[in-house]
C-alpha cells in the first residue's frame, strides 16, 4: 500500500515554477526523505500533500484521499510539523499540548508527549521562555498529539543540538516501529542516511535521483584508491600531486592488485592506503550541481 502517491505534480508562484512535474511514492510504514537545496520545492510539495496549497497540475493521493478536496478527513489522520510556524507565546508547554489534544478524537497523553520530546523540565514554562530548539521539540510534540498514521516533518531538526538530533532520530525510529509512515525533508545527509529507507533528491522543482541511501551512494561513481608515494620514487598510474596518487577503481579488486604488486616491487609499505567510497553527500552535491548548471 502506498501512503502517498504523487504523479506529475506541478506548482508555480506567478512565473516561478517551484515544482515542475514530480512523481513520488511513499510506502506504508516507511520513512521517506526529501533532500534538496534551498528553494528546491520541498516545502511546496509537502504543503500540497498536507492540503495547504493547491497543485496546478498532477494527481495527489495521501492515505487514499485527495488533500485538496478531503482536507478535514485527512487532517484527523496526519501529523504536521511545518518548517516554520508560530505558536501561542502565552501558554505553557502543557497547556499548549492540552489545547491541541482536544482538536483530535483520539489524542495521545500530554505527559507522555512531553516525555517523548524531552521537555519535562519545561512542562510549566511559557512558550516564550523556550529556546529555539526547545520550541522545535514542542512543534514535534504538537505534530504527534493526534497519534497520526502519517507524519510530515519539514526540516524537523534544524536548530537542534547534536544530542537532541539523536533523540529526535530515535523518536522517529520508534514511530516507524509502531508502523507509522514519515515523510521528512532535511538538509542533513546523515539524517536521511540514518532514518530514511528511501530518499529523493530534489533540485529546481524536479526529482533528480531517488532510491535507498545506499543505492544512491553507489550511483556516486566508482571508488577511488589513494596512497602516498615516498619521495624519490616515480609515481605509478599517472600523475601524483604532492606525492599522493589517486586512482579511480572501475574494478576495485584489479586496481588493488595492481597497486599492491607495484608496492611490493618497489618496497613501499602503503601505510597511507585509503579506499574512498562516494558518500551520499558527494552524490547529493554532484546531483545538485548538475541540476544547477
Amino acid at each position, binding site marked *: 500500500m502506498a501512503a502517498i502517491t504523487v504523479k506529475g505534480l506541478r506548482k508555480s*508562484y506567478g512565473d516561478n515554477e517551484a515544482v515542475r512535474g514530480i512523481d513520488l511514492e511513499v510506502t506504508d510504514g516507511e520513512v521517506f526523505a526529501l533532500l534538496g537545496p534551498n528553494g528546491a520545492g520541498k516545502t511546496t510539495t509537502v504543503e500540497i500533500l*498536507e492540503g*495547504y496549497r493547491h497543485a496546478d497540475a498532477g494527481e495527489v493521493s495521501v492515505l487514499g484521499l485527495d488533500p485538496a478536496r478531503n482536507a*478535514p478527513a485527512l*487532517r*484527523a489522520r496526519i501529523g*504536521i510539523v*511545518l518548517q*516554520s*510556524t*508560530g*505558536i*501561542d507565546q*502565552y*501558554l505553557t508547554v502543557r*497547556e499548549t499540548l*492540552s*489545547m*491541541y489534544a*482536544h*482538536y*483530535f*478524537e483520539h489524542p495521545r497523553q500530554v505527559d507522555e508527549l512531553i516525555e517523548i520530546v524531552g521537555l519535562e523540565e519545561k512542562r510549566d514554562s*511559557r512558550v516564550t521562555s523556550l529556546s529555539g530548539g526547545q520550541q522545535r521539540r514542542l512543534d514535534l510534540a*504538537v505534530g504527534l498529539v*493526534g497519534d497520526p498514521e502519517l507524519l510530515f516533518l519539514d526540516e524537523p531538526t534544524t536548530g537542534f543540538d547534536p544530542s537532541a538530533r539523536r533523540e529526535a532520530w530515535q523518536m522517529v525510529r520508534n514511530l516507524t516501529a509502531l508502523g507509522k509512515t514519515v515523510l521528512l525533508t532535511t538538509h542533513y545527509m546523515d539524517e536521511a542516511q540514518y532514518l530514511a529507507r528511501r530518499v529523493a533528491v530534489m533540485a529546481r522543482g524536479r526529482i533528480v535521483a531517488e532510491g535507498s541511501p545506499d543505492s544512491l551512494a553507489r550511483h556516486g561513481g566508482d571508488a577511488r584508491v589513494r596512497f602516498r608515494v615516498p619521495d624519490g620514487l616515480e609515481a605509478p598510474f599517472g600523475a601524483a600531486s604532492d606525492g599522493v596518487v589517486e586512482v579511480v577503481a572501475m574494478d576495485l579488486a584489479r586496481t588493488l592488485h595492481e597497486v599492491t604488486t607495484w608496492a611490493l616491487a618497489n618496497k613501499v609499505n602503503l601505510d597511507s592506503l585509503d579506499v574512498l567510497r562516494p558518500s551520499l553527500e558527494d552524490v547529493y552535491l554532484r546531483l545538485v550541481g548538475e541540476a544547477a548548471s
Partner: protein
Amino acid sequence: MINLRRTLYQLRFTNLAYWRNPSSALFTFAFPLMFLVIFTALLGRHTFMLDGRLVHQTTYYVAAMASYGLISACYVNLAMVMTFQRDQGILKRVQGTPMPSMAYLAARVIHALAVAALLVVLTAAFGRIVYQADLPTGMALIRFVVMFLVGALSFSAMAFAVSSIIPNADAAPALVNITIMPLLFLSGIFIPLGDHAPTWVAWVGKLFPVRHFAAGMQSGFLGTAFNWSDVGVVALWGAVGLAVAARRFDAEPRV
C-alpha cells in the same frame, strides 16, 4: 454539538492567553476603565442638555465608556489578535488539525463578547457606586442587551474584515486604531457632541456605526430615545463586515 464542546474547551485557552498578553489585557481591557475614571473625575460634575433631557456628565461617560469597552474588546483587540495569529502562523497550525476553523474562531468571538460584558458590568458598577449613575432596568435593560449583542457580533465581524485587509502584524496597531480613533471622537464617545457640532460631524455619525451603537447603549442609562434604526445600522455594518471577512479572511498571510 461536538463543535460546541470544542469551542467551549478552546475558550479556556483563549482566555488564559488573553490575560497574559499585555497588548490585550492592558491596552484593550484596562484602557476603557482608565478612561472611565479619568473622564468622570475631570468632567463629571457638570450637567448638560441631551435630546431635551438634563443629563449628568458622569452618567454620560458611564454609558460612553461601556460602548468604548465593547468596541475595544470586540473590534480593536480582536482585529489585532487575529492579524498577529495569522502572521505568526498560529492559524495555519490550527488549520492543519481536525479542529474546525469555525469552532476556533467562534471561541474568539465568544471570548471577546464575554470581555465586553465584563467591561460593561465593571463600568456600570463603577458608575453606580461612585457616582450613583442610573442603570438600565426593565424594558430598557432588554433593549440595552439587544444593542449590546448586536454590537458585539457586528464589531467582531468588522474586526475580521479589517484584519483580512491589514497586510501584516506590524501594521495592525496603527491601522486598527486609525479606523476607530477618529470615529470615537466624532461619535461623542470621548467628548459629548453638543447641538452645535458641524454638520459634517453629524454626517459621519449617521454614516458609520459607532454613533448609532453609542446612542443605543446610552438610552438605557440616560433615558434618551431608543431607535431600532440604530440597531439596524450597526447590524448592517456587521453584515458587510461578515461578507468581506467571508471572502477575504485567510489563515495565512497573503504574499
